[in-house]
């Protein structure tokens, strides 16, 4: 493993045209303190250019030396005459580098097909946007990609449309990644989008849903924030819009909706993680969805996916009074959570936002609900705090797998309860 890490460092060098043809890596084991001193001395002889991958520490512990081709003979004679035992670990460093480069390029090429996309790791924005195109290519009669707007930093806001035809069929809206640091959500979004595409025609439930309804899925709802989590601050939550009169950047996109906007369940301080913004829908990322859903006019469900806490919630967050459909939404949440738990035993709590988590004003689903979208839900995926936002990538597929039946429960229910 360490070899691979060191190779990465070497490979970086290789890009500046340094080659390692004929260089060898020797594993040297000193048997006494004097030999350690000799080895250290070897490293100090500048013209030999011996590069220690693992330094000599004490007798009996191996040291690894990369020896350039031109110094090989001298070094080996030195070791042998001082009776320092060694073995050749790598016969030709350049050969190994060339191999590794080939493998890396091959794996990059392989990822271009959705059947080899690595769903079990976290990806960059470019990788996700590229994958979207391959999903569309692989399912041309079902999936298309539309652009609903641009982010603050002018990145495209892409939505995957799943449709088997019709004109403005009743639709379900799904979004992940509105809070950029919640990496498990974008990752779950990718897996789920792929699942929907592959299960159409195979799973009766998915087929029934897509035969009558459309699904719109925005996987990277906050691309500026997401890019920032990769480049600068893994814990970034908000958008990246500049706030007039403040050094602090960004608005909480889940406090920026026109539903209880500006209340105590959000902050008026631009430096705060729950800053609601100067006015409702000030954020391009939010406005794009508002315009889309309003323009569509036939969206029957909005499911907005977050992490972490393991909760399934419905309106309201901005007031304590129960939503008119509280009973029905509560029952549906209960079923969904039970089916989720059946997969791996993961326990979710459920209820209205205000009861289950905290008062939150200006949220996505409160706006959707107040604008006629009855079946509005928000998920908080794994975990409950052990890793929090830094959920290990080994949990991506289990998380997506267990969430799937819960999503299906909601979507099937929406299909069976037209309004």
């Amino acid at each position, binding site marked *: 493993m360490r070899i691979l890490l060191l190779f990465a460092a070497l490979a970086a060098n290789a890009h500046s045209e340094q080659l390692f043809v004929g260089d060898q890596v020797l594993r040297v084991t000193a048997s006494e303190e004097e030999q350690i001193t000799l080895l250290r001395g070897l490293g100090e002889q500048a013209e030999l250019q011996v590069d220690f991958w693992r330094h000599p520490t004490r007798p009996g512990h191996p040291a690894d030396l990369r020896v350039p081709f031109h110094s090989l003979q001298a070094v080996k004679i030195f070791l042998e005459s001082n009776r320092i035992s060694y073995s050749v670990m790598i016969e030709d460093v350049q050969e190994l580098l060339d191999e590794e480069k080939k493998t890396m390029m091959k794996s990059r090429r392989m990822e271009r097909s959705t059947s080899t996309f690595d769903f079990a790791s976290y990806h960059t924005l470019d990788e996700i946007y590229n994958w979207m195109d391959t999903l569309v290519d692989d399912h041309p009669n079902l999936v298309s990609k539309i652009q609903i707007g641009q982010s603050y930093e002018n990145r495209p806001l892409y939505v995957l449309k799943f449709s088997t035809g019709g004109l403005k069929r009743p639709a379900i809206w799904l979004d992940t990644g509105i809070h950029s640091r919640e990496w498990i959500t974008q990752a779950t979004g990718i897996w789920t989008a792929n699942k929907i595409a592959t299960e159409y025609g195979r799973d009766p439930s998915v087929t029934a849903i897509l035969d009558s309804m459309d699904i719109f899925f925005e996987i990277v709802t906050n691309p500026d924030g997401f890019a920032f*989590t990769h480049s600068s601050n893994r814990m970034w939550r908000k958008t990246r819009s500049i706030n007039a009169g403040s050094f602090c950047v960004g608005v909480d996109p889940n406090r920026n909706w026109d539903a209880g906007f500006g209340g105590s369940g959000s902050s008026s301080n631009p430096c705060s*993680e729950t800053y609601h913004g100067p006015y409702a829908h000030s954020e391009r990322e939010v406005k794009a969805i508002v315009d889309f859903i309003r323009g569509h006019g036939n969206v029957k469900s909005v499911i907005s996916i977050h992490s972490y806490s393991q909760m399934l919630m419905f309106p309201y967050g901005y007031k304590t009074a129960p939503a008119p459909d509280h009973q029905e939404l509560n029952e549906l949440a209960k079923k969904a959570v039970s089916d989720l738990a059946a997969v791996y035993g993961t326990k979710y709590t459920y209820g209205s936002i205000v*009861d289950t988590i905290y008062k939150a004003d200006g949220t996505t689903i409160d706006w959707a609900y107040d604008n006629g979208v009855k079946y509005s839900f928000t998920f908080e995926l794994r975990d409950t705090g052990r890793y929090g936002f830094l959920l290990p990538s080994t949990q991506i597929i289990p998380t997506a797998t267990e969430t799937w039946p819960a999503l299906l429960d909601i979507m099937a229910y929406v299909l069976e309860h037209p309004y």
Partner: protein
Amino acid sequence: AAMELPPGLSAASRAAALAAGYICYRRGGPGRGLALRALRRACAEDIDGVGRKYHLELELEDVLDKDSTVNCTAEVLYHLGNKNIAPDVQFTLERELKNADEADNVFYNRIKSLEKELVAENIPDNHGNVSPEMEPIHLLAWVASGYVIWQNSTENTKFQLAQIKHVKQVKRSDEYLEFDYKILLHEMLTQEIIPWQMTVLWHPQHGVEVTRDSRQTKEAPE
């Protein structure tokens, strides 16, 4: 009079998280950590002139062995008024925890035999990975953060350890191990990420102790 609360209720879950953090601090170490698996029952009781007391039935899990769980009862008293007093926590574990001596001793000896003081950053890394060598360092921070969380919690906060940004071992002449951690805490209600410094002392027979801790100012606003 105590009032039963639905376990999904946010106030109950905050008290449960606090209790779990405290219990983990008192019982945990680099070889053993505890986390809250489930809140089974919760009651809240207002005590005139004193504060609000939560009676909780919790299920905790062994972080290193998810199949190993232990039930416990806990009481959390949030004091009225003065927000600078940490809540009182009392707890009873249903059974004794698995012995962690072996893991503790392996870690202890490994660190004691290092030539240079241990230094590490970003645990877990951005992808949630923790290398096996760093797992006890991660666990030690998890346990110690239970203390910081307990000392700084109110009824309206829910803290979790988000990440270790930096850890540096401090060489000592006695048999204790000392680590200087810079951690990030995540507060759930405000969603803030708060940098915090903590100095942690540990010895296999003497448990975990946080000897110094302080909230740090956030780096230059971005």
